């Protein structure tokens, strides 16, 4: 089940949810906080979400992945303050064949990044910035 919340993520939890002997391939994506971005040191990230709407967007992504690639997709996204190395998002996509699992997983993260109401504030040693807004 798709989830958005402040609990630390388990990289393997979505994998466990999507597996099954009908699927020969599981592709997963794990997004982690990097200690720098465009050459700038990042102290931490703060993720904020509109959780009710974001879960609806994630559910729509999963329905679309099932429709287009016959894939089972599960997405977990974290909110709150994250140190470098922490997991921000984990996606697993299972399908009978690997091409479909890769496509579905890639689709899920790209769509999420464009359409899910989740925001990321970068905290630098000397300031902050909302990613995407440039201010």
């Amino acid at each position: 089940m798709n989830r958005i919340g402040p609990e630390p993520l388990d990289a393997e939890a979505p994998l466990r949810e999507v597996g099954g002997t009908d699927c020969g391939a599981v592709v997963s994506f794990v997004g982690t906080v990097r200690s720098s971005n465009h050459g700038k040191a990042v102290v931490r990230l703060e993720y904020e979400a509109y959780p009710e709407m974001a879960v609806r967007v994630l559910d729509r992504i999963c329905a679309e992945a099932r429709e287009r690639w016959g894939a089972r997709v599960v997405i977990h996204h974290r909110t709150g303050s994250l140190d470098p190395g922490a997991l921000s998002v984990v996606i697993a996509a299972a399908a009978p064949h690997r091409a479909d699992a890769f496509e579905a997983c890639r689709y899920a993260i790209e769509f999420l990044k464009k359409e899910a109401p989740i925001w990321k504030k970068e905290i630098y040693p000397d300031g902050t910035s909302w990613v995407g807004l440039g201010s």
Partner: protein
Amino acid sequence: MRVTMLYFAAARERAGVSTETIELAEGATAAQALALACERHPALQAVATKLRIAVDQDFAQPDRKLRDGSEVALIPPVSGGIR
């Protein structure tokens, strides 16, 4: 009619609140809700053109008609916006 406004991320910081209830004339649109929000919180004005609007948890066009009790959210560019 009354609608619930939700402000997130940069919009929340600029509005200084995360949620509030506003009064609008019957038949008002999402764009009118945004305009009233900017009037109440002038710091929103600078980013207003970058905001998307969601009504009842779905993205909506500016001319979307609101109803009493609608939930109107101001959605700044999301995290993957610059990739």
